[in-house]
């Protein structure tokens, strides 16, 4: 029992301040970019060239709901979009440059075992596996999501530049299949970013709310990590020792398993 209530907190510094600052700057910038982008989209909520039909968008003419938009009107939204794009690109480049120079990229770039580990995570979340798979800083599904984010973002930025300057940078627009298709890829990659971001926020709330602290102060108590809690979405939000006190309320399939996680690299 004693080893399950460690007297020394296993608090590590998890996120460098550069990562934390670029994370929150990007979060705000993405919200503004998506909102203003939808306001711009609503001025012509379709993709077809005039006089043509567009194969791959069944909701021709359907605007995004007003409450999702930002900027108030077309020109206002454009002004925000073309200002905030620099903030987002700068934050993204600083982040990528930092994790390259500082080594954090190793926690994010997929490795050979990751597909297998990701599958194990899926099995765990579906209750097909009792114990949380062993993980490093992130689990394999997380790694995939965080690795995908900059790639999807790069597609969004490049297709965005293509529809901003389809004549001056005609070669870039041509790379995406011309203006109409570049606009389409810009929209789809935006949806992918939104999906990744919503999934991320959901998982933070549902499986690892303690990680919010690590993205603000940088500190993370490893006794509270999902692996130590054997946490699935909305399962085992409290640490093992706290659950033990509530007379079986938290006794899951893992009851009685060793509670102390291995120390993680910060």
């Amino acid at each position, binding site marked *: 029992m004693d080893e399950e209530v460690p007297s020394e907190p296993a608090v590590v510094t998890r996120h460098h301040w550069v990562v934390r600052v670029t994370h929150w700057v990007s979060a705000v910038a993405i*919200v503004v970019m998506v909102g203003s982008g939808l306001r711009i989209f609503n001025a012509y909520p*379709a993709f077809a*060239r005039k006089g*043509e039909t567009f194969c791959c968008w069944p909701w021709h003419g359907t605007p995004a709901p*007003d409450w*999702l938009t*930002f900027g108030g009107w077309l020109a*206002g939204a454009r002004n925000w979009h073309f*200002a905030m794009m620099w903030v987002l690109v700068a934050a993204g480049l600083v982040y990528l440059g930092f994790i390259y120079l500082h080594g954090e990229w190793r926690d994010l770039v997929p490795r050979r075992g990751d597909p297998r580990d990701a599958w194990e995570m899926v099995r765990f979340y579906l209750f097909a596996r009792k114990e949380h798979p062993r993980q490093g800083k992130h689990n394999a599904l997380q790694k995939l999501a965080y690795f995908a984010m900059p790639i999807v973002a790069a597609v969004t930025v490049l297709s965005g530049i293509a529809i901003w300057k389809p*004549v001056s940078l005609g070669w870039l627009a041509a790379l995406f299949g011309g203006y109409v298709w570049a606009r389409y890829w810009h929209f789809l990659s935006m949806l992918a970013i939104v999906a990744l971001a919503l999934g991320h926020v959901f998982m933070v709330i549902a499986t690892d709310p303690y990680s919010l602290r690590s993205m603000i102060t940088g500190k993370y108590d490893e006794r509270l990590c999902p692996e130590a809690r054997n946490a699935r979405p909305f399962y085992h939000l409290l640490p093992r020792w706290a659950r033990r006190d509530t007379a079986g309320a938290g006794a899951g399939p893992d009851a009685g398993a060793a509670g102390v996680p291995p120390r993680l690299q910060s």
Partner: protein
Amino acid sequence: MSDKDRDTDRDIERPQGTRAAARGPARLDERRDVIPGAIGRRSLLRGGALWLSTGLSSSALSALLAACNSRGPDGAEPLLRFAERKNEGVERWLLRHTALDRTSSRARAAGAAFPKYFVSDTVPVWDAATRGTWALEVAGLVRRPLRLTLDDLMKLRSVTQRVNHYCVEGWTAVATWTGVRVSELARLAGVLPDAQYVDFQSFDEGYHESWDLQSATHPQTLVAYGMDGAMLGPGHGAPARLHSPVKLGYKNTKYLTRVAFLPERNGGYWSDQGYEWYAGV
């Protein structure tokens, strides 16, 4: 005034309280006061985050949601203007007279689907009975001011080009335009070295937009009098209009009457309302 304004069913969005709003709100101009937080926050709470939700996340979320469908904080205005000026620098740096708009051979001409925007209440038509013969004035910082009737204009060296029309709203339309390059008019009039800007003025309620000289003299910037093999129709700016793929539609003055070479920029109908002045493509 290309896409400057009204289609049969739609406007480019105007800021609230302008002429267009008085005329009845355009569909896209409607701004309802919604309470976005109510739905978003509640469903999020219901979804989970039961004990955490009282903390930082909900206040951050409501702050974000409260900003939705707003113009954002007023204090941001100088920053947005600053960004617009910097963007203009980038766009000018990117502009090349050798970078030409190309249309895919598979792209269909818009034809009758080409929107017809204008700012008057009715389609502006040049009335020779009251206004006399239409003529295009080329003036300002030039050695030889010109006054060209439509016949004069059509006798000048013409260009026919199939290009895209890029509207600020996000749509594009392909058409084949026939007209005289603005660079040709500049050559004929003998533009003085001090001229850095060009103002394109209209008989459509005084509509105008000023351009940087480099974009105005781009080889694809035309004073067009023909469209898709016919003379320009009243809906598209007859007798002549500016057309170029290197600027957004609203910079392309329809119902053109005057081209003035200027030492300073002179704003424009839409840029004075908040749309970017440069608006390069």
